[in-house]
């Protein structure tokens, strides 16, 4: 079983990222549960999307022992890393996250939003770049299943740029 927490602020596309990750796992024939928690506001505020992927049926749908945390804002890192084990994988968007507690041993600082803006022209591809890091740093879903899941969810006409976003993330770590 692998437990993911994708966190940031509302509007960064993290719930969608969680859905895509879970769909990729199902595409790979695994069990997956996705859940989310967010405040009443539509934009801003901390939000998290949690995904559990397992070979066996998943009972409790919330993440208890995270293996992987994506933090796309400093506030999200401060709020959602408290129960993250020292040896878990931590990916931060270094565009927004500067202070990382020293206890974490597997930290990958990636300028996710900056890459999205500079290489792809818009920051809204940040969530797909983040999924590229997930595919690279874990073997829980195949890159093929991830790409298929991304392409099934993105608007028509944006497939190529989203494929590039996934590749950018994959190669950034």
């Amino acid at each position, binding site marked *: 079983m692998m437990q993911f927490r994708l966190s940031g602020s509302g509007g960064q596309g993290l719930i969608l990222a969680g859905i895509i990750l*879970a769909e990729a796992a199902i595409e790979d024939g695994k069990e997956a549960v996705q859940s989310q928690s967010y405040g009443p506001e539509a934009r801003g505020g901390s939000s998290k999307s949690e995904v559990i992927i397992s070979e066996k049926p998943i009972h409790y*749908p919330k993440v208890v022992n995270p293996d992987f945390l994506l933090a796309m804002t400093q506030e999200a890192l401060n709020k959602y890393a408290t129960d993250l084990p020292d040896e878990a994988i931590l990916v931060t968007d270094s565009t927004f996250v500067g202070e990382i507690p020293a206890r974490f041993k597997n930290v990958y600082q990636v300028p996710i939003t900056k890459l999205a803006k500079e290489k792809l022209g818009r920051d809204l591809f940040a969530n797909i770049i983040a999924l590229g890091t997930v595919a690279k740093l874990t073997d829980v879903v195949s890159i093929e299943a991830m790409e298929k899941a991304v392409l099934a969810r993105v608007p028509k006409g944006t497939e190529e740029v989203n494929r590039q976003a996934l590749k950018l993330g994959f190669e950034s770590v």
Partner: protein
Amino acid sequence: MAKAVLMQGNHACAEGAIAAGARFFAGYPITPSTEVAELLAKRLPQVGGSFIQMEDEIAGMAAIIGASLAGTKSLTATSGPGFSLKQELIGYASMAEVPCVIVNVQRTGPSTGQPTSPAQGDVMQARWGSHGDRGVIALSPSSVPECFTLTVEAFNLAEKYRTPVVLLLDEIIGHMREKFVMPDPASLTIVNRKKPALPPGEFLPYKPEADGVAPMPGYGEGYRFHTTGLVHDYTGFPSGSNAVTHELIERLHTKITNNIDDIVKYEALELDDAEVAVVAFGGTARSAYAAIESARAEGIKAGLFRPITIWPVPEKQLFTVAEKVKTIIVAEMNYGQYVGEVRRVVCGKANVVSLAKWNNDPITPNELLNAIKAGR
């Protein structure tokens, strides 16, 4: 077989409604139930049905009663504040015996409470929310696939017993996504209301048959009948008679209680040798599965009794559990509601402990495991 997809509980509920034959939705969107309305707004027109966003929750309830009287299976979906607003008309649907389904995806209350947080605080409201005295059916799913099957079941029970049926989800189950395989439509049992055998003029719209339920023509099918929230006789017209009042209110109960074996559904897991039984439903049952698995791994004899039909209470089955175990832990995301029912039913046969939580967070498997250990 259909392909496995990732689906949200609220979406499975909407698809279940379509599969059950529902062709009308009226309501007013509210977190965390909005996706039910959102999906049905798209799906209903595709199958020849209608979706109306009403001016408020009360009107949504009124519209589905009207649509059902006209012969169309109908539902609404809401959360706590809207469920409160609908109560008077839910009572009307009980009294006028209009089949319909009310989906309530529970969030923390009272009042507007915590819109995006899970809770199970409407358990008693589902039973007693409308004034007066009546039988009630409420179902509580614990998984995304069960959101689908229990929505179908809710319509079947509504149609069979001519009663509003409450589908009580919580934010955990409504919003979570998990693997779902669409059942083959041919594999589903679909129940439709009984139609009159007698011609118009001879047919009495509220004269029950042996099962306590009268056949129900649709308005516009040639049968003219009166519908009212007042106590009424077999003709459907108001009656001030004590005897009519006694018989009608009794039948609103007995058509449920006399058919309880047909209505109740429950899950019994690892209870054969259990010393501790957990009673949990909806999203909380997910924690219970995990806690019992951990307990068993440590050699602790724990099991789960999950009422799927939370109203009426599966009394007979729960009492049997109480006769065998030492402790029953009732885990629920409220200040302690169903625990009172469990205490009433088990009559001191087992020690009943409340594990209640109302702080927006689900009861965790560990919290439940600790309660199981303390209950040995």
